[in-house]
């Protein structure tokens, strides 16, 4: 009894400071389906389509390199690895439906990758990449190690694929990893285009199991755990106390972590604004929903605040070295100040936006054992 009164009081108080109160527009009057359609048809499916294409190219170039491991083919393969990794930044946040069932993001992008296990897989051969315990020995980070991290220079790296005793095993592992990325991406895309899109769009009500509530939760979870923490906070030592320069994304490429971060930041901002994939067009979005509700925070328009905060984070990140690992080691304070800018939008999104949209957070931190 005491507790329910407290909750009532809190929700009433919060309500009164983040919107103009019960007399303003009702969240339920907004056409939620229009947002879902814009997301599905102009952002999600085009992003997965693009990713499936670039992962097909990645697989094809890996097979070519395996057949003919020349420096030129290695460089081609590295380029398609970069393109596919960038394209992945546009789909990583959509961990729902088939992607959730496949543990799509975990299979494609757990870093740091487990180089010990990768080497063991290559030596012994009898690995099963579908096992959860193999998540950290596959995907883009494992390819990063295989293409950029096996040796000090290109000659040393190429030797693993040409003159080493088990060069065949290296070819096979490259082929297996790229094939798996390609098949997983196809599976998710096919699911979206063969039924899930309609299911997603028609589930347009409100409540914890509605598409909007689930998507918004997945989006904020991605922003908080994978963009803010994974790409910046963890290597900067925000959670461990001391910096961990080996925990950056694309560690072995030495100079690609910033590009991946920027791509992910763009994708997150575009999603918020409803900006169409690889186009200047836009449609209904979280931003327009907040505008519809006239949501204000401390006298300012919340949607504008959030959009500007994305820009502020990007601006802060411009100062960073292309290689975050080098940045952590030379001047970690710049990483920390980028983290601070990212964190400001966690509050805007997770507290202010969710209250205005009347959406509950559906995830909690695990207790760690």
């Amino acid at each position, binding site marked *: 009894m005491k*507790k329910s009164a407290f909750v009532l009081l809190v929700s009433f108080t919060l309500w009164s400071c983040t919107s103009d109160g019960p007399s303003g527009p009702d969240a339920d009057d907004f056409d939620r389906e229009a947002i879902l359609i814009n997301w599905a048809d102009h952002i999600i499916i085009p992003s997965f389509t693009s990713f499936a294409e670039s992962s097909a190219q990645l697989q094809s170039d890996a097979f070519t390199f395996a057949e003919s491991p020349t420096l030129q083919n290695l460089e081609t393969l590295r380029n398609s690895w970069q393109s596919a990794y960038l394209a992945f930044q546009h789909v990583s946040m959509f961990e729902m439906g088939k992607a959730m*069932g496949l*543990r799509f993001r*975990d299979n494609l992008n757990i870093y740091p990758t487990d180089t010990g296990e990768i080497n063991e897989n290559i030596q012994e051969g009898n690995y099963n990449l*579908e*096992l*959860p*315990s193999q*998540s950290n020995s596959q995907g883009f980070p494992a390819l990063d190690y295989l293409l950029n991290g096996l040796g000090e220079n290109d000659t040393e790296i190429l030797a693993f694929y040409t003159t080493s005793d088990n060069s065949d095993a290296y070819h096979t592992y490259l082929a297996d990893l790229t094939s798996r990325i390609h098949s997983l991406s196809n599976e998710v895309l096919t699911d979206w285009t063969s039924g899930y899109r309609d299911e997603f769009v028609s589930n347009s009500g409100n409540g914890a199991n509605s598409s909007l509530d689930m998507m918004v939760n997945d989006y904020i979870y991605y922003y908080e755990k994978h963009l803010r923490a994974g790409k910046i906070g963890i290597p900067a030592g925000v959670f461990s106390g001391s910096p961990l320069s080996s925990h950056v994304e694309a560690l072995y490429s030495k100079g690609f972590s910033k590009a991946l971060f920027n791509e992910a930041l763009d994708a997150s901002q575009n999603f918020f604004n409803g900006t169409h994939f690889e186009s200047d067009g836009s449609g209904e979005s979280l931003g327009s929903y907040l505008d519809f509700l006239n949501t204000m925070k401390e006298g300012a328009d919340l949607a504008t605040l959030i959009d500007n905060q994305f820009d502020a984070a990007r601006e802060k990140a411009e100062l960073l070295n292309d290689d975050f690992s080098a940045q952590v080691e030379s001047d970690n304070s710049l990483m920390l100040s980028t983290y601070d800018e990212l964190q400001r939008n966690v509050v805007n999104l997770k507290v202010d936006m969710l209250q205005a949209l009347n959406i509950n957070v559906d995830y909690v931190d695990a207790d760690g054992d």
Partner: protein
Amino acid sequence: MNLSKLLLFALPPTLLFSCDIIDNNADDFEVPPTYEFTRNGESTVSFSGQTTRIKMGDELFLAMSDFNNTTEELLLQMYRNQADDGTDVDPFSDPGLNASDKSIKSKVAASRDYFSTNVSLSAEIKNDFETWLSGQVNDVFPNRNQLAEPGVAGQIADGSGERYINAQGLEYDQMVNKSLIGALMADQMLNNYLSPAVLDEGTNREDNDAGVTVEGSNYTNMEHKWDEAYGYIYGTSEDPANPNSTIGNDDRFLNKYTGQVSEGEDFASLAEAISEAFKLGRAAIVAGKYDVRDEQAAIIQGAVSTIIAVRGVYYLQAGKRQIEAGETGSAFHSISEGFGFIYSLQFTRVPGTDQPYLAHSEVKQILNDLLGDGENGLWDVELSTLDALAEQIASQFDFTVEQAASI
């Protein structure tokens, strides 16, 4: 008794402290600011045996998931600290533990009040742990590189990591870890060392009144028994005299979950209530105030029992939420932890009685129900079952399912 327990839980720690002062006035004895007691300038506090057993439990738990080095024989030796034939063995990595003649098994389900005249149940419980240890090596280890499915042991994803489960969906290492909280820590503390049957055994009262110390030691027998209870929760504390500064971070057993449960707003006073009661009770022993001592023991019994129950209910509800979200592996992990806390309920103690909050038979019924919705245990468990069992547990205590679930 019931009234004082309720009051303690309701009052903030600062007010709790004033209770001490009232007691001081009434009974006129000195209570030190921290758990430090001396005789002739030397400390009288000792609980090294408890520290040893907590550390043994820690190594045992870690060994259960060390696929490359662990054998069934090793786990059983760690549990018994001796070989099959009773000869001495060195199964631990810490030489101090190998040198010890103590073991986990000898103190599992071994309290004076509950098991001294019920050795058949004691043996059954001791054997449960051996069954789980053997199952880990014989059922789970061979399938570690196989995806688990209903009726088949193997690995299952939990977030970005993986868990290793048996054919019923249970994690043996979690069952051992959490069940020891009841079978070892709570049972020894609540039903043995805090019991008048142990504290007042033989000439303990006369000796304590006269300041007669145990031969070769600086403490009286009664002082030492009380300290041994203390050691089962604070035995690996960073600063055992002031244990709440790191409560929750000092072990993976009772200390850890006292800290975690006390983070909930409805249970925030529990950690403080337990440490204050231990301190006041110990001071009462020094002063020969045995009624005050027993009041404090009752507070500890109620609070520690509550912590175990809250955590059991919490994990059932966490598992329910995770199943609803499609997070099967996370749900099985939560419910495996819950299994251990529920198992531990048979070692709880209703203050002022000689009974647990849930008897052995009730605990067995709950665990059978938990695994009984289909032939494959947790793979078949229904949400309504998780709710019903959580209600059944909470109804025996002064908290609701919602309060426990919201920590």
